[in-house]
């Protein structure tokens, strides 16, 4: 159990509480629906559409979270163009950081 400035965290108690809750949920699930036929009611309901192959129904990685990227376009487009991959740009950032940090330390130390 670890202490922090305004609380504590004890994982053993959390695990016991969570397993009791999951046990209750399991017992509620076991009393379930009597008229359920396995296999019939879990097929995809296609409503007359053609059945596509597995490669076409699986959503690929570059399509997920499209709305998130469209909404944050103003932040993403400059950031992605800044990651050029040219080694000279990496060294420009290094030398610029040294200059900026020296200026900050001199100004703050002088004041």
């Amino acid at each position, binding site marked *: *159990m*670890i202490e*922090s*400035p*305004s*609380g504590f*965290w*004890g*994982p*053993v108690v*959390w*695990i016991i509480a*969570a397993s009791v809750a999951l046990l209750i949920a399991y017992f509620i699930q076991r009393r379930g629906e009597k008229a359920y036929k396995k296999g019939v009611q879990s097929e995809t309901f296609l409503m007359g559409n053609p059945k596509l*192959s*597995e*490669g076409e*129904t*699986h*959503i*690929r*990685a*570059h399509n*997920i*979270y499209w709305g*998130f*990227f469209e909404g*944050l376009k103003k*932040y*993403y487009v400059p*950031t*992605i163009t800044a*990651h*050029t*991959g040219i*080694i000279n*740009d*990496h*060294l420009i*950032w*290094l030398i610029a*950081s*040294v200059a900026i*940090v*020296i200026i*900050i*330390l*001199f100004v*703050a*130390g002088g004041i």
Partner: protein
Amino acid sequence: MTSKKARNSLVIVSLVFVAFLVFALARDIHLNGIHIYTLGAIAPDLALPGGAMVPIRIILEVDGMSIFMGIIWATVSLAAAIFSLSHMARETGQTRFYTLLLLMVAGCFGMILTGDLFNLFVFLEIASISGAALIAFRTRFADAVEGGFKYIVISAVAGLMFLFAVGLLYGQYNSLNIGYLANVMQYGTLDMIALTLFLISLTIKTGMVPLHMWYPDSYTVAPANITAMLVITSHACMYAVFRICFTLYGITLDATTVGWIIIIIGLLTMFVGVTMAVFQTDVMRFMSYHAISQMGYMWMGVGVGLAVLGNPEALATYGRDAISGGIFHILNHAMYKPLLFMTAGALFHRTGTRDLNKMGGLGHNMKFTLILYIIGTLSIAGIPPLNGFASKFLIYESVYQFNPVLAVVAMLVSIITLASFTKAFQSAFTGPQLPEYKDVKEVPKPMLIGMGILAAGIIFTSIFPGLIVERIVKPATDALINQAAYVNGIMGGMP
């Protein structure tokens, strides 16, 4: 016994022996305090022979923080070496691979356990050279060689800037020993320039924003277990920053300014790292950006501790817990990040591609990899009861009292981390079983054993965080804050 088996067993036996020695040393330091070793003297702790006022010879000094990093490195290099027994089994030139791997282990240990600035530079360069050769090991891939080239150029420039700063300090105080320099340091103009050069050259080796752009390019194309070890090498460079800021300069430096610079770098790193990570479709590049973002947490935690170093009541209230949270996060990150990189390597080993757009439905075949990936995901996103939550909890609670904006950004970054890992989980593991991956089997046993060692560490740390914090993390925090104990270890109690 064939020569291949002899070589493999030599590597594994020597790494197990090193792990045993490190754990024995950790227990000894926990009981007896700081240990020093003088290279080439008659007795190991004869740092000041014949009544000299200045320590002579290269001195290795191990305190709580150094042995903390040593425990991490011993465990991860053992897991990575076991993983590489089958991951690299079809490559040619495996003897050279294992030679370079053991050289990198030695280089990083030297960086962690030394008490001398020039020795730090030499071992930093050893680790960089062997790391770059290991990244470019599979020379049949064009991007592997490019990643290795970027790594060695950045390491060479950073190492030379570090050497310049060491020269500046030597010219002023005529010594290279960290303990002695901490005693005589006066914070003048040249010392300010030396601090900047130290900070920036080690920052770019750690991979913090805005100096992080080489990091995904190099860590994507390496073999998966080498990336796991290189992440810990970046942690060792971060350890060198903390050693320089807390022990070498101590309270003489302008703690508020330098602390705020470190906090701002940590904040930027967390945010830019995770937003770039959501965008990626290459699984190893995705994990590299997450490694960058999690390092921001550690910097922010320790930066808050540095910013209140001159303020004793704030240090006692939340500064110590902020530093403890940052250091505990180093331990947790060093367990779940190599595990995640190795699951990505397992995916590459069986399917031959790193592109998430081409994968799908692999959870049907690779069940153990699926479970290990879920453990890693819950840990990195900070979901209770796993250990990621324990260290993030400490960081949130203490950083909030310094400035609430930092804690809010940290929680936001956690949420986006979980979102991006769910995206990768859906693309690679769930979904219908695709016809081209119908006969993909589970990965071989050595890879599972390597990943299992790290997963066992994660579960142990999740169930007993109090034990880990009391025995390992709190001594490391005290070792960082208590500069006088480090100096006394060398100077032998002289006033």
